[in-house]
């Protein structure tokens, strides 16, 4: 089973880059088998659609807009966050992962199992570092994601 762990975000806007920091954290602290891909997707939407389509299961890690406190992590299944529509877009920046997945659905290439771990950010200020609060969430979330991958039959080792 091909597993993709997709970290999204912009490293230059502090907590906005959480998904990318998360990928870097996994690379440093875990060893994954060959059928698991760790992917720093940056903020590219449609231009990385093939990465999503190639996987059997996807774990997305990104910041979310949701009710709650900064640092809260929410877990969504595919049906929870798939958009019902493709809104009008002014710029390719607006083609986000949700739209890309919708397009993949029409192409019959959308992976069946997509899990989104979304975290509520503290700040989007310019800066290449995470806020201390969100940085502190990396190890715990890594354990959660790794446990789910292990449960799907793919063992992951700690370095």
């Amino acid at each position: 089973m091909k597993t993709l762990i997709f970290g999204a975000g912009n490293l230059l806007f502090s907590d906005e880059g959480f998904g990318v920091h998360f990928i870097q954290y996994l690379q440093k602290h875990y060893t994954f088998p060959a059928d698991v891909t760790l992917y720093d997707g940056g903020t590219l939407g449609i231009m990385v659609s093939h990465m999503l389509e190639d996987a059997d299961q996807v774990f997305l890690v990104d910041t979310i807009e949701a009710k709650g406190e900064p640092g809260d992590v929410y877990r969504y299944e595919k049906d929870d966050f798939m958009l019902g529509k493709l809104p009008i877009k002014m710029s390719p920046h607006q083609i986000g992962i949700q739209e890309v997945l919708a397009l993949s659905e029409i192409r019959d290439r959308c992976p069946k199992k997509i899990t989104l771990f979304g975290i509520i950010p503290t700040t989007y200020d310019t800066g290449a570092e995470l806020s201390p609060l969100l940085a502190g969430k990396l190890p715990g979330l890594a354990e959660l994601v790794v446990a789910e991958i292990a449960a799907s039959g793919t063992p992951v080792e700690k370095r």
Partner: protein
Amino acid sequence: MARITLDPITRIEGHLRIDAEVNGGVVTNAWSSAQMWRGIETILKDRPPQDAWIYAQRFCGVCTTVHAISSIRSVEHALKVDVPLNAQYIRNIIMAQHSVQDHIVHFYHLSALDWVDVVSALKADPKKTAQLAQSISNWPGNSETEFKAVQQKLKSFVETGRLGIFASGYWGHPAMKLPPEANLMAVAHYLSALDYQRKAAQAIAILGGKNPHIQNLCVGGVATAINMENLATLNMEKIAALKTLMAETREFVQQVYYPDMVAIASIYKDWFKYGRGVVNYLAVPEMPEDTKNTKFALPGAIISGGDIKKARIVTNHQDLDLIANIKENVSHAWYEGNGTLHPWDGETKPSYTEFQDNGKYTWCKAPRLDGKPVQVGPPAQLFAAYAGGNEKVRKLVDASCAKIGVGVNDLHSTMGRLGARAIRAHLMADYSLEFLDKLVENVGKGDKVYANPTEIPKGEYKGVGFHEAPRGTLSHWIVIENRKIKNYQAVVPSTWNASPRDDKGVLGPYEASLVGNPVAQADKPLEVLRTIHSFDPCIACAVHTIDPEGKEITNVKVM
């Protein structure tokens, strides 16, 4: 009078707002507003100049490689570092492939649905669609079976109530003119285009080590080791893989994208009359063919008042007049004061007000060349190459115009910009393979050099890195002092095009292009989208958050 405000607050990444005043079905005034504060440049202050490109390529969420290239060139320009031929060729291939990927995605996934009616495609006859498609191209995918399958897929989506996915499109709008068969053909290609943009992404990853965010640049060249026999380096096997990928993408661009564009332009010929706007153009020369950035495959030019014949050709990246005469004014932008500064002296001091029609209304500064607004992008680059006598460009532009039934001067328009982008994609698909051949030939001659390793010296240095990116002229301006970055400013293509009014009240390109634009239904301003999309706007520079979009969902808090 109606006032339209297009502000798609999707909260995913929407940050360009367009306001247009409509009188009697025609736009009479317009404002372009970037709704998000960036200030990314400040993050680079005091960092080592040789690292700037790594951060700079995160400026934009879409066009990462272009900022890497511009940034590294700014340091090389400041320190007068030569770039070995192999490195130039490798960078040229990356640039060309990035352009191809970008143009494919822009045409099909960002702008096509302004012209193509998805709902109408359901009514098409697949057999007639195949006949239409085969009359304009030999593409093997243009079969009745294929079109039938796509239509079936669409139908099943509708039957399960999921056409909702396209619900916000302007289907059935009076400005939609394509027959059902052309719509079905375009929708089929819209879906298959994703397979070809990926091939370009893969080609970039082979050369750049990673995509997005290439890893292979260094001041003075590339970090791509070249050894045709060594597995860990750029070798024959990787060259062969690159060749296959780039040839497949070229086939798609030249046999699908380009003919589709010609077909759509021929049916929407009236759109060569709209969207003229600012017809001063700037393009910088691109695709260097020597080590000093003085010889280029494509020339640049400065064009005033749309007069291509009187273009001033820009032949290199050291053009002192060009470097001296780019300035940015902040009269109508949310920054302190109303001054005009050269990018090397540029400031980024925010001063937010409300949206004021006659005051400050955007985060975008107003770049000016010799005090005038300028349009950048594929038309500028084609006009420059046309004026500079590039035979390849001349032939392609003339042949395209003849097929559509317009003249070169009709390209100053909404449809002209879309057409120019398709022509440029055609060109870049060729250049990709051409520069790969040149690379192989040069390495074959025994040249194995791919970098001139460079130490950053003490003292003060200023540099500018020019790059003709998919959206137009990009420049990064760096001031280095004692091995650290003292000042850094990026003047990006969308800053030129989305520019607000300046101190003299002169409109920027988006704004000017909308004046005179028709609007049949003020509550469905499809025509405004057509003209703005034709520039390929790229504003947000990447704030990115997933919003479960107000759906009734149960939040399951796990940490």
